[in-house]
């Protein structure tokens, strides 16, 4: 049974070490993307004319295949983790901006008026009213971005073995061990599903006012038109 999880020594990592590396390469860009997306989205909510061009730019950026993105960056950041993480951050940005804009815009005008009447300034109104109400939309974006990011890290294998669990794919071929390839695919998929489940739990914790039985309530609002799980 333990043989199943043995990792070739050239990867200089244990099975769990690879999982940790994979998570780090996938999650950090998404979080950075979220932090950058918040102000951009707020700007788009404020200045309506800005949103269509921003949406256009993000759609175009999202269409660029990951491998093309990686290799162009090699010239600047070398064959390193950073090269893998920058495109992932950009892709997640692209998922977040529309998700947050739609989420913040979905806050009813009466709610905003009530907040203003209670004496909340624009900053507190944003932090205490708009952002919490937008949480379900943001988490929906977070789920898409994180899961696709986890899947994409594997492609980093092609640029100097920077793919964490994806590196097993190459080793499996080089050493003629299909076991390693199965291990990589299954672990990556399970990791993605587990992280997805954690995010759903986070949403439930953050939005105690939402009905629990999401199954019976209307099917989750159509996720932003970003189905490109893996590219």
């Amino acid at each position, binding site marked *: 049974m333990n043989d199943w999880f043995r990792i070739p020594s050239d990867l200089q990592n244990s099975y769990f070490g690879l999982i940790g590396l994979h998570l780090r390469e996938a999650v950090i860009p998404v979080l950075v993307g979220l932090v950058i997306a918040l102000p951009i989205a707020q700007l788009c909510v404020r200045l309506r004319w800005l949103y269509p061009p921003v949406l256009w730019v993000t759609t175009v950026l999202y269409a660029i295949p990951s491998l093309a993105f990686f290799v162009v960056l090699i010239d600047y950041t070398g064959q390193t983790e950073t090269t893998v993480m920058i495109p992932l951050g950009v892709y997640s940005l692209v998922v977040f901006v529309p998700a947050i804009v739609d989420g913040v815009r979905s806050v009813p005008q009466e709610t905003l008026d009530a907040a203003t009447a209670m004496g909340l300034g624009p900053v507190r109104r944003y932090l205490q009213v708009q952002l919490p109400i937008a949480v379900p939309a943001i988490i929906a974006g977070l789920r898409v971005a994180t899961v696709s990011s986890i899947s994409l890290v594997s492609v980093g294998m092609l640029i100097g073995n920077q793919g964490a669990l994806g590196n097993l794919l190459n080793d499996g071929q080089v050493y003629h061990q299909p076991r390693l390839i199965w291990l990589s695919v299954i672990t990556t998929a399970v990791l993605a599903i587990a992280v997805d489940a954690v995010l759903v739990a986070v949403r439930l914790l953050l939005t105690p006012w939402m009905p629990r039985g999401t199954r019976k309530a209307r099917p989750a609002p159509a996720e932003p038109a970003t*189905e*490109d799980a893996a590219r």
Partner: protein
Amino acid sequence: MNVLHYINLFFSDNTHWHGYDGIPTRLREHVQYSLIALAVAAAIGLPIGLLTGHTGRGGNTLSLIATAARALPSFGLLVLMFVLIGFGLVPVMIPLVVLAVPPILVTTYEAMRSVDPSPVDAARGMGMNETNILFQVELPVALPLILSGLRSAAIQIVSTATIAAYVSLGGLGRYIIDGLYQRNYEKVVGGATLVAGMALVTLALFWGIARLAVSPGVRRSN
């Protein structure tokens, strides 16, 4: 500047425009793979999506499929199929189709579900049969969203077909993979430019199709 320099070198080299490894050949291969994969995926995803969306059943199953498909690492799947089946077009087409079906299927379902029910009821009241309702009322209204699903699928196919060069496939990805192995950065960047360009052309193509195919009334209401 640096990257632009490499791009210029790659495209101005005359040998890159001829023969087996020439840009026209690789471009044709890439387009061919993408079209086959998209056609197969659409042939699977569209009918099922239209039917489930029309009847409104199976939404939960579909969202489950979508989550599972999103979790599947495309690159891993590609290598796995290659190892299991071996050389050739089939092991590459399987993951491409598997990855493209869910966006088509789910978006089509969502598009059909989001059609305003009142015109559908009106059509039924006027005595239209279900097939006519599906094709003459629901489909035209749902078309913009359905096309966006097809667009996601197409872009995903173009990207993954690039990665597929790693497992023996031709296409534009060859330049990137071979260039990396040969430490020929000029080739790598040239390939990347071509692939990015192709993705953008795909975007533009779908934009054009939407302009042509979506009825003006639907476009105005959006």
